[in-house]
């Protein structure tokens, strides 16, 4: 009886500790972000106040109004930036996932000569520091007329993401027991059908996470975008953030407003794609 009670108390304490740790972790993750959201609704005076004003006296939409306003009044071409970012990120993610699925499947399922070498070779294309790549890339793009176009950035982002999507998707296809596909083929599926009906749904969690990574990488990339874009025709949102900085000052309120606008689509997309990450959960019961 006493033993039983001790056990129950221990379990309670562990549970409380778990919740407490979870709360602390989530708070650390959220606070800097909430600070940005809060700042986007406050005047600069209050943002820069010392000591900091935690509970704002007044919330308004001034920063947003200015951002969407005319150029002279602190407005930036947000809508254009947003559209550019969306087109470039979505297209490059879809292509990177398709290319990555093909490549990842090849690495996970086929045996061929020089596999490790080819794999490492593909990965190393990502090892090149962005700084040393940006100027030659600029020259090549200038020669081919791809500077300041959506296509130019899409190509770059596909290349940026393919090594990762291959690596990730390869990892998840390996978790799918090869017997599953073989069984499907014995049951009369073609290899193609076996892939789509059996292996693909099972590896969906991995493909979804690779998709999130690829999208967020292209959505947030700054260094190459700032090199390869010239005008509002192709500038993306991270490059747009720079519109709020000048030599010595930073327009914090405006920048935070744009940042909020930048985070919302990423947040929504991530939340939606989360559903597919659960696919891995239901599969956990199948034996390897």
């Amino acid at each position, binding site marked *: 009886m006493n033993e039983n009670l001790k056990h129950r108390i221990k379990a309670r304490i562990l549970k409380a500790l778990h919740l407490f740790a979870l709360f602390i972790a989530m708070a650390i993750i959220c606070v800097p972000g909430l600070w940005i959201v809060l700042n986007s609704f406050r005047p600069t005076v209050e943002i820069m106040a010392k000591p900091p004003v935690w509970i704002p006296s007044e919330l308004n939409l001034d920063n947003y109004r200015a951002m969407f306003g005319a150029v002279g009044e602190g407005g930036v071409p947000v809508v254009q930036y947003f559209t550019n970012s969306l087109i470039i990120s979505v297209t490059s993610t879809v292509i990177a996932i398709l290319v990555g699925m093909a490549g990842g499947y090849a690495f996970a399922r086929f045996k061929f000569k020089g596999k490790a070498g080819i794999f490492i070779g593909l990965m190393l294309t990502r090892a*090149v520091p962005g700084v040393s790549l940006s100027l030659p890339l600029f020259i090549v793009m200038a020669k081919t007329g791809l500077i300041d176009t959506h296509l130019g950035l899409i190509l770059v982002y596909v290349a940026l993401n*393919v090594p990762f999507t291959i690596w990730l998707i390869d990892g998840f296809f390996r978790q799918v027991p090869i017997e599953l596909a073989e069984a499907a083929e014995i049951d009369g599926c073609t290899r193609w059908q076996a892939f789509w009906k059996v292996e693909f749904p099972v590896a969906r969690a991995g493909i979804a996470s690779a998709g999130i990574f690829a999208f967020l990488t292209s959505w947030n990339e700054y260094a190459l975008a700032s090199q390869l874009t010239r005008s509002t025709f192709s500038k993306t949102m991270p490059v747009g953030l720079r519109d709020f900085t000048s030599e010595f000052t930073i327009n914090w309120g405006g920048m935070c407003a744009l940042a909020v606008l930048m985070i919302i689509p990423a947040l929504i997309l991530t939340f939606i794609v*989360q559903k597919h990450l659960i696919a891995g*959960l239901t599969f956990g019961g199948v034996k390897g």
Partner: protein
Amino acid sequence: MSRLKPPAWFVLLLPAVIILAAVVLIPLLLSLYSSFTPYRLTRPDSLYRWIGFANYEKALTSIHFWTAFGRTVLLLTIALNLEMLMGLGLALLVNKVTWGQRSLRTIMMFPMMFSPILVGFQFKFIFNDNVGLVNNALQSLGLTDQAIPWLVDGKLAFFSILVAEMWSSTSVFAILILAGLFAVPRDPIEAATVDGCTPWQTFRHITLPFIMPFIYIALAIRSLDVARAYDIVQIMTNGGPARRTELLWTLIGRTGYVDARMGYANAMGYISIFLAIFFTVYFFRKLNAARAELGMGG
């Protein structure tokens, strides 16, 4: 009529190879060539003068280069290890939760939705010595009465960059490890519990080996993803003040674009690539070993 049919793996890999060759390999050859010239952005004709390994010699004998190199290795090592441990902890915490897990997972990935350039601005503000949140919090708690120059003092600035870097990237580890946790089969765990294993033993001998491949994938991705950290460092300190937080990426970026010495910058870039090659090959080997243990190698 017989046609030579390329093997399936070749066809599947072809798109990846083509796009990487076009976008990465060609510019890479260009910059490799320029690292053997005294190329300056301000004098385009200098691209056609061949000076052999002079740039490499200059970089290899430069104290600035080696300091930046050492600092980069230090930052990478500390950041990768801490991010991995914290990511593992976070994944385990979230994995244990039974309610609202989907929302928690989304919140967990929150920092990933921040553009690195934004993270840079944000932490520059948080660590500002005058109006920054950290100093104000410390002062109102009475822990200190003076402004701590977080971004000016060399050691503190390094620490501040580390914090920003960890805040933004721990979730990469957490989400991959969590995906790994989902894929852990239930049967061996149940069997272990029946056999009387403690939770720690179960974790150490069953769960951990199973998620090791995911940890190595995350480590490899993060170690390669040096370009991401560039934005953060560039915005927060830009290697300064007086080179006290100089990392390879800020050094190369500044040499190439501000000093306009592109040839020299590229030479430094190529030396630093060996760092990335080392990390990639190392983690790839570890990954293969971990997979072989699980019978997923080859």
